[in-house]
């Protein structure tokens, strides 16, 4: 049984393209990459917790939200969320919708060897090449920046507080 939603008449080509596991896996990879870069500066854990990867996919995947994400990691997550109050309202549903695709992507990345699970967190393994297309570049840049922003918060609790969510329930 294949639980990855492939392109067919039921899901549609656009939906597959939008949520394809390679895309999700790439977003997770670049988010974790950005996180690990800044986490290293702060001597914290280099791997990123799964929920923040899911949040990252939900924010980077839609073109409109991705364009609204900061260009640099100087912004604090709490400020970012304060500037976009609608995110706080819609992010829970969005994350919920992305869960199947997220897991498919996560499995795809692990299977390809770019991602790995360490102590329940997602860590980088093999290197992923840089994209050449404008969309790929934009996804890469914003994902890395968002990963850095997560790292800047210093802890999962701080991230959870900034996002207004409780993890584990």
């Amino acid at each position, binding site marked *: 049984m*294949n639980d*990855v939603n*492939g*392109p067919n008449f039921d899901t549609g*080509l*656009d939906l*597959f*393209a*939008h949520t*394809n*596991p*390679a*895309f999700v*896996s*790439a977003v997770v990879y670049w988010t974790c990459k950005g996180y690990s870069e800044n986490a290293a500066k702060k001597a914290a854990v280099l791997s990123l917790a799964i929920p923040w990867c899911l949040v990252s996919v939900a924010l980077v995947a839609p*073109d409109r939200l991705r364009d609204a994400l900061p260009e640099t990691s100087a912004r604090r997550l709490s400020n970012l969320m304060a500037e976009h109050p609608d995110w706080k309202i819609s992010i829970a549903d969005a994350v919920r919708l992305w869960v199947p695709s997220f897991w498919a992507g*996560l*499995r*795809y*990345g*692990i*299977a*390809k*060897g*770019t*991602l*790995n*699970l360490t102590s329940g967190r997602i860590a980088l393994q*093999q290197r*992923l*090449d*840089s*994209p050449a*297309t*404008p*969309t*790929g570049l934009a*996804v890469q840049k914003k994902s890395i920046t968002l990963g850095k922003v997560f790292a800047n918060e210093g802890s999962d609790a701080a991230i959870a507080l900034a996002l207004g969510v409780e993890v584990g329930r």
Partner: protein
Amino acid sequence: MTWRIRAIALYRAGDRKERREINFDLSRLQIITGVSARGKSSVLDIVSYCLLSGGCSIPKGTIRERVSDVGMVCENAVEKLAIVRALPMEGELSSGAVHLERGPNVWFPETPDPRWNLDTAKEALGDFTGIEAVPLLENSQSPAEPSAVNIRHCAPFLFQPQDVIASRNMTFPWLDDPFFRRHVLDALDYFLGLVTMQTMVLRAELRQLLAEQRRAQQAAEEARRLRAYGFERGLSLRNDALVLELVQEGSDPTSLEDILVALKSATAATPDSVATAGNQVPFDRIQGEEARLRATLRREELRLAELSRYMDGARQRGATAQRQLDRIRLHELFPDYGDTMQCPLCLSGTLSAKEIEAQFTFASEALSAVADRPHRVESRVENEREKVVERVTDLRARLNTVQDQLMKLLPLQRPALLTEEAIRKRLLQGRISEYIRAMSRVEPVVDTDAAKREARIKELTAQISETAIERQRQMLQERLTDIIAEVVKKLDVEFKDDPVRLDLKKLIIEVKVRGQRWVPLSEIGSAANWLSYHLAVAIGLHRLFRQQESSVPPVLLIDQPSQVWFPSDRGPREGVIAEDKDLEAVRRVYRLLHDCATKDGFPQIIVVDHADLSEPWFRESIREDWHDEEHALVPPSWLAD
């Protein structure tokens, strides 16, 4: 010019050639005496009938059965007038046919030839009498055209019939008809000379002058009113004319004259006629072309928009597909990892790499087909769009040109507007003309005759106004009262020294009893008083007529003045009752009548009575004596058949 009675006649029924005539002297007292039922009273009826009465009061019986016609010859200083009327046939009230003959030697015709009707006969008799046809009498059927006075309106003053002479309520006969009474009262003003034909002429003149005066006053009032309200109205019209360019712009007018000058120039302007205004040729053609171009341009623009929308849609779809394709192609960044991918948790090979890659391949190819658009179609669409753009550009240029032409033509050659404007100008000119006509009445009318007219009105008013006539009537009333007072002194009345008068506005006899107030005859007792006062008033009135040179004939016919002292079956005959007080009263009456008819110049008094006094003057006055069986109005020989 008035007349007296020369004779009366009766035509025997049947052959109409036998005639009974009673001749009278033109002056003095003339008595027809006789016993009852000899036709004495009918003498008065015959005279009244010959004076063209509407009905016939000649009693039915012997006379109506034995007589076919009755007639009368009147005579004035110059000529005679013979009047013969047929008695009414059975069932008729009167006869409308009249025989009239006028001339110096006229007498009763052998056989009457009634060719005149009643109205023309009245005119002829009125002319013979000297009565002018003065339109004085109120005409209920046509109030604007008063009726004329005629002989019938003086007839009541000629008669004192048996039932009137001793009446306490009636002064003259036939006045119980209120309509006739009104006419007699009105005509009395004429007969007394208060109103003459000259008066009527002067009245007409006064009426005309008053109408002229009223018109002048109305014109002056209208001019004043127009001058007061005309300036504002004229200014409004002038402003309208200015807007429609019927007058030249200039300084604002400050007076009515300025406005009138400006408005007169506005009416002189000749705006384009409607036909001229509508005769502007090229506008319609250009307007049609402009509409056609506009419609074509609209179609082309719609087509261009459709093509552009297609191109934009194609581009958008391509971009979206490209973005999706970029996402798919991210899998190319991942390293190859064999055919089977392990589960990250249990490391079992549950994922089929081939299957996933096949999906990526399928999706990439599908999205590439969309993202990489068929350029041939797009180029054809683009070519078509460019052509449409060219056509649209060309159409816009042409449309601009045509619209420019229209804009240039519009102010000069816009037919609809010009037509409307021409109509508005014509309408305004009409209103201005009406205003100018109204304002022409503002110009002061020089009433040069005003002063002269005022003076004449004043003069005429003093002469013929109701007040003036009333004043003259009052004078005549007083004079008549004096005359009556002289007559009354000769009669045996209860209030011999108290004034007696005939109210000329009511025709009632009044006595100022004890000098206190005027008492009508109806409030005074005794038939002797009533009769005496009637006689006095009748005689006095005729004397007044003579003094006034009236046209009323100086004829007085009296029926039975002795009745109050002697009933008809017991006539006063000398020798039968001697030295009686009643006889003395009768004698006094006849003496008065005799004296009036002879000494006082009262020309003709005809009395019919039973009285047969022995005094010589009485015997001389008897014209007919019908006391024996051989004499009567209708000869006994006529009764034989």
